[in-house]
């Protein structure tokens, strides 16, 4: 939220530019090693798309932590639920998905996205009431309770949807790639990038242009003072939690479509990635998570091409490197 003030003239709040440029620096550094321009474009596009999906999943988590010091290990459950929610929409609407109509294809995608967001938002409300609220302020219990909640949620998902992966097919329009000479960019990746950018811009607008956003930003810094100014921070928090869960669900749905299948294991897998991203970005900073998501995804893609064995741990290495440079993340929030 401090990083990219779009279209504002100086000398408004000035943010440090260097951390935001790290993805660019990484891309430029990797380019010579990759050699071929078309491969570079493909990898970078893939990285951007992946980064957008990760950002969608992670941004809610950073605000939840930033505002209330709640380390929600159950966040992965929302990601998984979102994936399954998408299957619920796609199953009866298979004909829309396979139809040769952009409108129908888009419609089923949007319906799935909205369904995932709504279901996970509602589930987030329940999770906050039942699991998180009773242990506000007690860090250890919170960690334990949310882990327990995550276990229960994952098992319930297996019970409800079965232990096997559920296949998902991309709607017709989004299959295949755009080809530019030698470079191929998957159509779905473009869609994912658009969705991610929309989410990001939407969040920035809310955070920077609305009173609620103002309250959230202030709450991340000093929750107590916001209360002393007369605002019900706990209500605000529930809203943030629900929004974060909804976004996680949306991200999960998109990721499931991308992979072609929905499975509860996606929750645990991306939970770790979300933690890494919000640590790198700075706890409580949406802009930081945005930069960090792109950074992590680009590094993973480039590493996957250049040093395959290291690809899966590349994000851990990135985290360690960033923390050695900036111990509180790329865009730390004041007062933490």
């Amino acid at each position, binding site marked *: 939220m401090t990083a990219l003030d779009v279209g504002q003239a100086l000398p408004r709040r000035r943010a440090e530019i260097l951390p935001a440029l790290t993805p660019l620096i990484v891309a430029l550094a990797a380019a010579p090693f990759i050699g071929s321009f078309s491969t570079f474009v493909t990898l970078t596009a893939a990285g951007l798309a992946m980064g957008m999906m990760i950002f969608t999943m992670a941004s809610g988590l950073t605000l939840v932590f930033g505002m209330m010091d709640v380390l929600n290990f159950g966040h992965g459950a929302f990601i998984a639920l979102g994936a399954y929610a998408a299957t619920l929409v796609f199953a009866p609407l298979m004909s829309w998905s396979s139809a040769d109509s952009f409108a129908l294809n888009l419609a089923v995608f949007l319906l799935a996205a909205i369904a995932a967001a709504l279901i996970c938002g509602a589930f987030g409300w329940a999770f906050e009431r039942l699991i998180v609220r009773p242990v506000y302020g007690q860090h250890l219990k919170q960690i334990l309770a949310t882990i327990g909640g995550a276990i229960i949620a994952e098992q319930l998902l*297996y019970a409800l949807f079965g*232990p096997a992966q559920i296949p998902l097919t991309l709607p017709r329009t989004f299959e295949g790639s755009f080809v530019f000479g030698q470079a191929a960019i998957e159509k779905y990746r473009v869609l994912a990038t658009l969705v991610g950018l929309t989410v990001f811009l939407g969040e920035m607008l809310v955070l920077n242009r609305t009173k609620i956003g103002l309250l959230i930003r202030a709450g991340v810094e000093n929750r107590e003072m916001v209360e002393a100014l007369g605002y019900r921070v706990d209500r605000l928090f529930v809203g943030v939690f629900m929004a974060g869960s909804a976004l996680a669900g949306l991200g999960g749905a998109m990721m499931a479509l991308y992979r072609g299948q929905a499975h509860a294991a996606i929750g645990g897998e991306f939970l770790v990635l979300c933690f890494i991203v919000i640590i790198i970005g700075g706890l409580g900073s949406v802009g930081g998570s945005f930069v960090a998501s792109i950074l992590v995804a680009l590094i993973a893609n480039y590493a996957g091409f250049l040093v395959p064995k290291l690809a899966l*741990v590349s994000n851990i290495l990135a985290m360690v490197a960033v923390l050695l440079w900036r*111990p509180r993340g790329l865009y730390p929030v004041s007062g933490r």
Partner: protein
Amino acid sequence: MNILSENPPRGRALQILLILIVLALTLAPFLFHGAKALNVAAKTCVMILLAASYDLLLGYTGVVSFAHVMFFGVGAYGVGLALYALGPSWGALALGLAAGAALSLMLALAIGLFSLRVQSIFFAMVTLAVAYAFNVLASQLSDLTGGEDGRSFTVPAVLQPSFRLVHDKVFGVAITGKILTYYLVFAVVAAAFLMLLRVVNSPFGRVLQAIRENPFRAEALGYRTIFHRTLATSISALGATLAGALFSLWLRYVGPDTALSFSIQVDVLVMVVVGGMGSLYGAIIGAALFVFAESYLQDVMAGLSQAAADVSLPLLPALFNPDRWLLWLGLVFVLAVYFAPAGVVGALKADEATWE
């Protein structure tokens, strides 16, 4: 009692429960017949050590770390790979154990020092990420570690199942290498547990608890918390390494699933919380309960699931499916966190208090 470091379990119910568990484990090969039962007993021993060493960190020092399973894996792979590469000799075993211990110590130190640099709230998340990385590495470096499939290996002759110590059966049981392995595991775990007991009841252990209660105060009183925390992490790590080594020795196999998966970490967490944080005896109870449930609860659930299916009840068959046993344990876990934060140990002690 000096062997229990002047801190025996208090409360009649607790004492009885512990004696039962210990007796069952001591005489397991003779009391219970069949490979599965012995497996359960061996795994219980290993988990007791794993849980107790974790409780040193979580319950006594108040440090939340998700890297414990990583040390377990280091021990398992150390012994496993050594025996695989160097053949079934005691020398290889010792070398593997030493190598594992050394690596664990280095990792523990690195983690301890890293925690200096970052905020404590990062620490839990960072340990999670690091443990995850280790898991991935073990799968990726398949030339070394055997990848996803892991490595099977041969153990020293005396410990092999085909070995017979004496010709005749003792109390109706053939004393094979398997039984000997079991008692090796049991003895080492017992010794390690008693040493951990000594640690937590020493002045060092009391400082750890002071740090857990109020780190700032402890610092103000002159204790260098970073030193204590790092030492506690190291001891805890060594305990886990030893547990891992014993486990892989027992299984004669090491692989990512049995040695490094995050589910093991979650299991240990459940054991410690349900048993009772801040109590090593709680680790015994928690580990025993968990392994027992894991092994036998599933049979019970299978029965319930079938019964529900027979009566065509919706959803229940799926909920009672034996594969979903973790769901119920998860529920118990969450309930324990809210209503019984002192675990079984705390609940038993509370009952004691009302008697007086």
